[in-house]
């Protein structure tokens, strides 16, 4: 008969001296604030990152809503309405914007820069990764706690430059900073310089985090935890961290060259001085393409945990998933040329096209593995599991539509149209952000010690799913019909699709706000969370309380089962009946 793994429960509320949760205040309000500001606890740093990233996500999202509103009409629609108020001042120097594209171009740029540099790149690794990596490895903290805190301050410092640039009227270069426009626009103003500096500084924050994680994974795994005993979340974060460390210096150098070009006219990108603007594109995408995988690998990492716990199954083909992570990380460095298929029409594009198709395979393998994991599972449709299934749905669309763009002849038509906009939103938002929201729900009880309202969560998830598809699916058709991206005004035939998309963005926003209120309500008076509400088997659930104590574990955990051994181990539950878990099949050997 199956044995219920009660042994671990002792570690949770055994007869040891009382250790306070990491969230407990340190005396007065000021000393608590000081404690948070100077903390080297990975959990607190992760939470601070989470809050900062969500705040930035809010601003980036508002910019997106404004972009969609502006596109309601073929000619400029709403900008004139901001005359005289603070937005009008920020984006129009107090002038009437009714007939100018400046508002749209700047808001579109703000949306891109915030979402890429301030939200998606740090999102999962810096917040959930920071919080969970040591817990999952059974460590007390990351390898370099002070470096970790430094990365948070560097992030803040970088954001400060971005905000300064925004407050002084923002930039209109697009998030890609393509030369020679970016070296010549706004001559005599520093705002472009500030924005580029922001991206440059944020790169360091990214490198710090990545380096920290690589070392932590190599050095701080608990006794008994081999490489293939690690949760796949750790594998995903590890793959992303390697790319961060290797690729980010390239964007640092590139942005520095861009600044030199602006200040000293060194003539590396500026054609008037004999430079080559296409060289900038090569440099830029040599970083920015691998970074696409810095964004998506952690999203995939989360999905592993959600699918495993939601279907109570061993992840199908663990090693294949782990190795495909490394394969993606590796190939991601040699596909950047597919962003330049229309730049000059070089035959080298053929190589990049072939490699692009190659990188599709490990991504597809992961999806197949997750679907196979569901087979004969015991599936529960909690909010986070719904998000995991949404991810599979949306990411499949995102990945499959990549085939159009990797195919050279078709790309010549679709390049720089709304088709690509739809495609990368399906990957970046439908992939990473959807996984991120799912992950926040899944680990919310662990991070805050409170349960959220399940029904509100599920309704929110449904709204986000419907809203997301309504927003971005029409954009595929707009793109194949020839609507170019980054257009403040457009020809009338696209209006129907644009309005469809704009209405979708409202539904999407409603879903996200519902989640926000749900989380706030949970913090205010949510039910206290048990240590392991989902009955998962990774260390943060089995060996740490909700929320964890300051040093994570009472004792250094010893790993006795795999992260997904749902077929043999029934985890301890603090309150039986919280969730009815199916028992492992007869003959399964639980430890102890």
């Amino acid at each position, binding site marked *: 008969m199956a044995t219920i793994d009660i042994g671990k429960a002792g570690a949770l509320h055994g007869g040891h001296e009382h250790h306070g949760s990491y969230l407990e205040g340190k005396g007065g309000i000021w000393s608590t604030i000081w404690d948070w500001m100077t903390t080297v606890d990975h959990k607190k740093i992760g939470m601070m990152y989470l809050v900062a990233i969500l705040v930035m996500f809010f601003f980036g999202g508002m910019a997106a809503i404004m972009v969609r509103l502006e596109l309601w009409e073929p000619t400029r629609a709403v900008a004139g309405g901001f005359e005289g108020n603070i937005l009008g001042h920020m984006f129009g120097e107090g002038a009437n914007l009714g007939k100018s594209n400046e508002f749209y171009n700047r808001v579109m740029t703000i949306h891109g820069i915030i979402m890429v540099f301030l939200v998606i790149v740090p999102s999962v690794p810096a917040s959930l990764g920071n919080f969970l990596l040591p817990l999952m490895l059974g460590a007390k903290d990351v390898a370099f706690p002070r470096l970790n805190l430094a990365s948070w301050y560097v992030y803040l410092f970088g954001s400060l430059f971005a905000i300064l640039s925004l407050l002084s009227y923002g930039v209109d270069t697009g998030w890609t900073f393509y030369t020679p*426009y970016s070296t010549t626009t706004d001559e005599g103003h520093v705002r472009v310089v500030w924005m580029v500096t922001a991206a440059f500084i944020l790169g360091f924050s990214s490198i710090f985090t990545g380096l920290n994680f690589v070392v932590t994974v190599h050095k701080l795994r608990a006794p008994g935890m081999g490489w293939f005993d690690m949760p796949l979340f750790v594998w995903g974060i590890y793959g992303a961290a390697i790319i961060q460390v290797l690729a980010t210096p390239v964007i640092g150098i590139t942005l520095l060259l861009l600044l030199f070009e602006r200040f000293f006219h060194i003539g590396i990108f500026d054609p008037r001085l004999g430079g080559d603007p296409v060289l900038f594109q090569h440099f830029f995408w040599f970083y920015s393409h691998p970074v696409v995988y810095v964004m998506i690998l952690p999203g995939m990492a989360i999905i592993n945990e959600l699918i495993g716990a939601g279907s109570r199954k061993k992840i199908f083909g663990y090693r294949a998933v782990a190795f495909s992570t490394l394969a993606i990380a590796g190939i991601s460095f040699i596909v950047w040329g597919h962003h330049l298929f229309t730049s000059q029409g070089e035959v080298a594009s053929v190589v990049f096209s072939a490699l692009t198709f190659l990188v599709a395979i490990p991504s597809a393998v992961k999806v197949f593995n997750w679907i196979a994991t569901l087979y004969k599972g015991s599936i529960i449709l909690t909010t986070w599991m719904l998000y995991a299934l949404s991810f599979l749905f949306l990411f499949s669309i995102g990945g499959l539509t990549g085939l159009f763009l990797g195919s050279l002849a078709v790309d010549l038509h679709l390049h720089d149209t709304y088709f690509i906009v739809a495609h990368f939103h399906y990957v970046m938002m439908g992939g990473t952000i959807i996984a991120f929201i799912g992950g926040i729900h899944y680990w919310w009880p662990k991070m805050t010690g409170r349960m959220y309202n399940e029904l509100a969560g599920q309704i929110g998830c449904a709204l986000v799913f419907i809203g997301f598809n309504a927003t971005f699916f029409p954009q595929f058709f707009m793109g194949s019909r020839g609507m170019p991206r980054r257009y403040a005004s457009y020809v009338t035939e696209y209006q129907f699709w644009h309005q469809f998309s704009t209405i979708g963005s409202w539904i999407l926003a409603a879903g996200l706000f519902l989640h926000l209120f749900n989380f706030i309500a949970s913090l205010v008076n949510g039910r206290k969370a048990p240590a392991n509400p989902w009955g998962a088997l990774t260390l943060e659930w089995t060996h740490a309380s909700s929320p964890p104590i300051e040093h994570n574990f009472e004792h250094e955990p010893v790993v006795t089962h795999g992260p997904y051994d749902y077929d043999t181990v029934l985890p301890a539950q603090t309150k039986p009946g919280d969730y009815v878990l199916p028992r492992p099949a007869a003959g399964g050997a639980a430890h102890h």
Partner: protein
Amino acid sequence: MMDTILTLAETVRAEKGGGLLHRFSFGHVGNSTQAYETEWLYIFIVWVNIISFIVVMGPMFWFVFKYHRSKQATNYQQSASHNTPLELAWSIIPLLVLVPIFFWGFEGYLSKLASPSDAEEIQIKASMWNWEATYRNGAQPHPRDYVKIMESDLEVPLIVVPQDRPVRLIMHSSDVLHSFFVPDFRTKMDVTPNRYTSMWFEAREVTLRGDEGTWYRRLPNGKRDFVGHKVFCAEYCGNQHSEMAAGLVVLTREEYAQKLEEWLNPYSEGMSPREIGEIAYKKRACNTCHSIDGQRNTGPTWKNWYGYEHAYADGQKRMVDENHLRENILYSQKTLVAGYPSSMPVYAGVLKDIEVNGLIEYIKSLSDRGPYKDAPQ
């Protein structure tokens, strides 16, 4: 495997652009010889997408339904957590599907890049924010033939190309990156400032004229629709990026030759400076940023600009006279008008003298304090 793929490809190819999926994706059949290749490859990939999506999502929904926890007894079934033949199969089969997509894409790319040697060559100069075409005899699109392709009344150049003859565009930019995109021909190419890029196409059908011999027809909703092909700029190039457009129509060879003769001399003998200015206003794309009816745009309106005092970015107020206009036109960055972006290019060395004089005269004619104030408009 390959047989199945090729059969599917043949089925898609046979659809000849009339299918529902095709109409939904593109609106109508593209009007160039290469468009067809691109369209059928696109439709082929759509089918690969649909089938793959069903293959992946079908089991997912089925498993979620079948293995939902509410259907489980206390004990649940176990299944293998790994299966090498299956895993190999789902790595290799997708790869096989991707091979033809890659190959046909590669083939189509080369045929879009390599133009026939007997192509009609047209030079395209891109600048912020204008497409300037120059034909082999030196002719350039004449402003009287400019067209409105957007809802606004902005007039953009009309580029004409001959039917049944390959056309090669040799393109360069005078400032930042642009991209010449003709959606109906299903192709585009970036235009860069440091080297020539080129693209080519061969239009299949002559553009049929719309209502009353114009290039427009009325839509049921009363809106004006341009019947030719739209040309967009697809690489972000600053403020008026979305207004950097052109119309393109396909003419018979005779009409084409005739048009090129007509367009040879935009400023003919005996034109007044004001008339020259009016032509230059559109030809040099001043109209992209400056209105003549008092509306604000990226640049200030020209209505009542001359003869009035205006605030400049350096805090001074200046009375606008001929010398001021000349300086503002040729060296736009020297004195900037307050409240507007500094995005106007430098026109010294670009404009001819008669154009500068003409533009000044034209601006004067738009002011009620100018010499033209009593002249009938």
